[in-house]
C-alpha cells in the first residue's frame, strides 16, 4: 500500500429518528477513495447513496439524523470536527454538485457572485479578484461569452449551463474531492453527454477525486473507475468498473444489469425479455440481521434468511456480500 487513501469511510451509520421507529438509511458502510480516483456509488431510490454523500459533508440535520462511525479525510475524522472547522472544508477541500441545478443555485444572486462567494470566503480574494476568477472558471467549464454570463442570474441560463455553473462553483477552490450527486439525471441526453465529457476532461486537468452518486449504470460505465453497489443502506458489492460489468457476483447487481435494456438491442435480432427483480426494497425501520436482499433473491435459502453474509473477496479487488457468490481462484 503506497499511501493512505484521500477519503476513508469506516462503518458509517446514518440513522434518522422518525415517529414510527429508527430509519437505518445507511447501516455500516465502509469504503475508501484514493486521490484522483473516480468512484461511483450506484443503487436505487432509498438505498442510502445520497444520505452517504450528505453524511460525508455533514449536511444532515442532527437530530433527527445521527451519524456514527468515522469519515477520515486526509487522516482527519470529519465527524469530530467543530462546525467552524467543517465550514473550512466544505466547498474548499470537498465540494459537491447536486442533481437539480435550478434549486441549488440562489435565484437572486448573479452566477458571478455565487462562484465568487466561495473564493472570497476560503481564499480571501477581493471582490474584483473573485469576479475575475469566476470568469476564468466559467471559461474552464465551457460557457460561451463568460464575461457576459458572469453578470447573469440563474433563470437566464439553460439547464445544461446551470449545471456547468454548479461545476464551476464546485471547482473554484481546487477541491481534492468532488461529490457529484446525480449530476446529469435532470438533463437531456445530448446535454448529459456534454456534461459527462466536461467532467472527464476536468478530472484530467484539475485532478480531483470524484465520488459519483447515480442510479444510471450507463453513466457509471462511462465515468467511473471503481463501483460500489448499495442496497438497503449497505454495500453489497464493490469492484473495478470493467470487472463489475463483466463479472457481477451479487445477485442484486446481476439483476440490475439484466434489467436495463442496451441500446442496439434490436440490431442483434434477439428478442429478450427484461429481467425483473421481483418484490420491493425492505423497510429500513426494522433491523435486518440477515441478508438484506434475501426477500427478493432468486437464489435465497434458509441460510440467507438467518445469517448476514459478510463482504468478502470473491476475486482480486472484488468483494461481494453473498453466501452463494462463487469465489474465483486467486493468485497467492
Amino acid at each position, binding site marked *: 500500500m503506497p499511501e493512505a487513501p484521500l477519503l476513508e469511510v469506516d462503518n458509517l451509520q446514518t440513522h434518522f429518528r422518525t415517529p414510527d421507529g429508527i430509519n437505518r438509511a445507511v447501516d455500516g458502510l465502509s469504503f475508501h477513495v484514493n486521490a484522483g480516483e473516480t468512484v461511483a456509488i450506484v443503487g436505487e431510490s432509498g438505498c442510502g447513496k445520497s444520505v452517504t454523500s450528505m453524511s460525508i459533508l455533514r449536511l444532515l440535520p442532527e437530530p433527527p439524523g445521527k451519524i456514527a462511525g468515522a469519515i477520515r479525510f486526509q487522516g482527519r475524522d470529519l465527524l469530530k470536527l467543530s462546525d467552524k472547522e467543517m465550514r473550512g472544508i466544505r466547498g474548499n477541500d470537498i465540494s459537491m454538485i447536486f442533481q437539480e441545478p435550478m434549486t441549488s443555485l440562489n435565484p437572486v444572486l448573479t452566477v458571478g457572485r455565487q462562484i465568487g462567494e466561495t473564493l472570497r470566503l476560503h481564499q480571501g480574494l477581493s471582490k474584483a479578484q473573485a469576479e475575475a476568477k469566476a470568469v476564468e472558471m466559467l471559461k474552464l467549464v465551457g460557457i460561451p461569452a463568460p464575461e457576459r454570463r458572469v453578470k447573469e442570474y440563474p433563470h437566464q441560463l439553460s439547464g445544461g449551463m446551470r449545471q456547468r455553473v454548479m461545476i464551476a462553483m464546485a471547482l473554484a477552490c481546487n477541491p481534492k474531492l468532488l461529490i457529484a450527486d446525480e449530476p446529469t439525471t435532470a438533463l437531456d441526453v445530448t446535454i448529459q453527454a*456534454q456534461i459527462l465529457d466536461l467532467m472527464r476532461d476536468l478530472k484530467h486537468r484539475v485532478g480531483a477525486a470524484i465520488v459519483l452518486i447515480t442510479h444510471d449504470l450507463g453513466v457509471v460505465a462511462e465515468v467511473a473507475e471503481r463501483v460500489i453497489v448499495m442496497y438497503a443502506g449497505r454495500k453489497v458489492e464493490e469492484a473495478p468498473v470493467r470487472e463489475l460489468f463483466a463479472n457481477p457476483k451479487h445477485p442484486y447487481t446481476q439483476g440490475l444489469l439484466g*434489467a436495463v435494456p442496451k441500446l442496439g438491442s434490436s440490431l442483434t435480432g434477439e428478442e429478450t425479455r427484461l429481467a425483473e427483480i421481483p418484490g420491493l426494497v425492505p423497510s429500513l425501520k426494522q433491523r435486518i440481521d440477515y441478508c438484506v436482499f434475501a426477500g427478493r433473491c432468486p437464489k435465497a435459502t434458509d441460510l440467507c434468511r438467518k445469517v448476514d453474509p459478510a463482504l468478502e473477496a470473491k476475486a482480486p479487488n472484488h468483494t461481494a456480500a453473498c453466501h452463494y457468490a462463487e469465489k474465483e481462484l486467486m493468485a497467492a
Partner: protein
Amino acid sequence: MSATLSTTPTTDSAVSHGSTPGRPLLQVDDLKKHFPLRGGLLGGVTGHVYAVDGVSFEIAKGETLSLVGESGCGKSTVGKAVLRLFDITSGQVVLDGTRIDTLPNSSLKPMRRRVQVVFQDPFSSLNPRMRVRDILAEPIRNFGLAKDRADLDRRLNEVMDTVRLPRDAITRWPHEFSGGQRQRIGIARALAAEPDLIICDEAVSALDVSVKAQIVNLLQDLQRKLGLALLFISHDLAIVEHMTHRVAVMYLGKIVEVAPRRSLFAAPRHPYTQALLSAVPVPQPGAARKRIVLQGDVPSPINPPSGCRFHTRCPYVFDRCRVEEPLLKLALPAHTAACHLNDLPPEQNPLIRDGTPLH
C-alpha cells in the same frame, strides 16, 4: 447489418389490422399547437410558443409508436392533443375514421373511452382521497361499461389481475403503494375503460431500474394479449428500442425522422437522431463509440430558427439548411427523414458514409 433492412422484419412492421383493414387506428395530420404568450400593458398576445408545428403520423391497431425527443420538443403536447386535453391550433386528429379534434363535447365521450393515458408521475396522477377501488371504478361507471354491481366487481377483479396486483389491495389508498405499484394502478385505470389506444407519457421514466423492467414487461404483455396500440412518449432510447415497433423523433415541434425500429437504430438518416443515439451512455465500460457531442442548447420554440430547425446545432450544416426547410422524405423502405443531406448521392452523404453511432 443493413442487408437485413430490405427484408421486412417480422417484429418491426408486420402488425395486424383488426376489424378495419388498411385504416390506421389513429391518424394525425399536420397537427399544430401554438400557445399564445401574453404580456405588455394590456395583456395582449405578444407572441406564440410553437410547441407543435406541423406533425403527422399514424398508428395501426396493436402497434407501438414511440415519440422520442428532448425536453421541450413538443412530444407531450402531441399526446395531450390526441387526448384532446386542449383544442389544437390546426390540423386534424382522426381516430378510427372519426375526426375527433372538431367533435363537440357531447359526442366526444365515447371516443374518450377509446384513448386512455398513463402519466409519468405515479404519485401525483392518482387522487390521494380515493381508494383504489373508486379510482378503477370511475372509468367503468363513467362510460357505462358495467351492467350491474356484480359485473363491476368482476371487471375490477379482472383489471387487478391483469396488472398483477393482489385483488384484496383494491380497498387500500394510493399512499399505501410503492411507485411501481402505483404505476400499475395507473395502468389498471387506463385499462378499465377498455381502450384501443393508450398514451404512455414518460410512463416508466420516474421508476427505479428494477421496477421499470417490471412495468415495461407488463406493458408488452398487455399489448400482446389485448391488441392495444400504444403511443409511447419517452426520452429513454434504450427502453424505446426494447419495446417499440416504430419510432418518430421530434425536435423543436417537428418530426425529423420516422422509421421502423430496427431501421432507425441501424441506419439513422437524420443528424439529430445520430447525435441522440450517440449520446446515450451505454452500460458497457470501455465500449469504443463515436460520440457526436452537439454544441449549445435547443433553441427557443418561441422563435425557432429559419430553414431547418436543427441547423444551429447540426455538425453538417450548409447554406441550404439555413433558408429551406427540409421535408420528410423516404430515405429507406418505410423510413422517412427530414434532412437535405439525403438528397445527395449515398457516397457523398455523411449520414451514410460515416456509419452509425451504434456500430
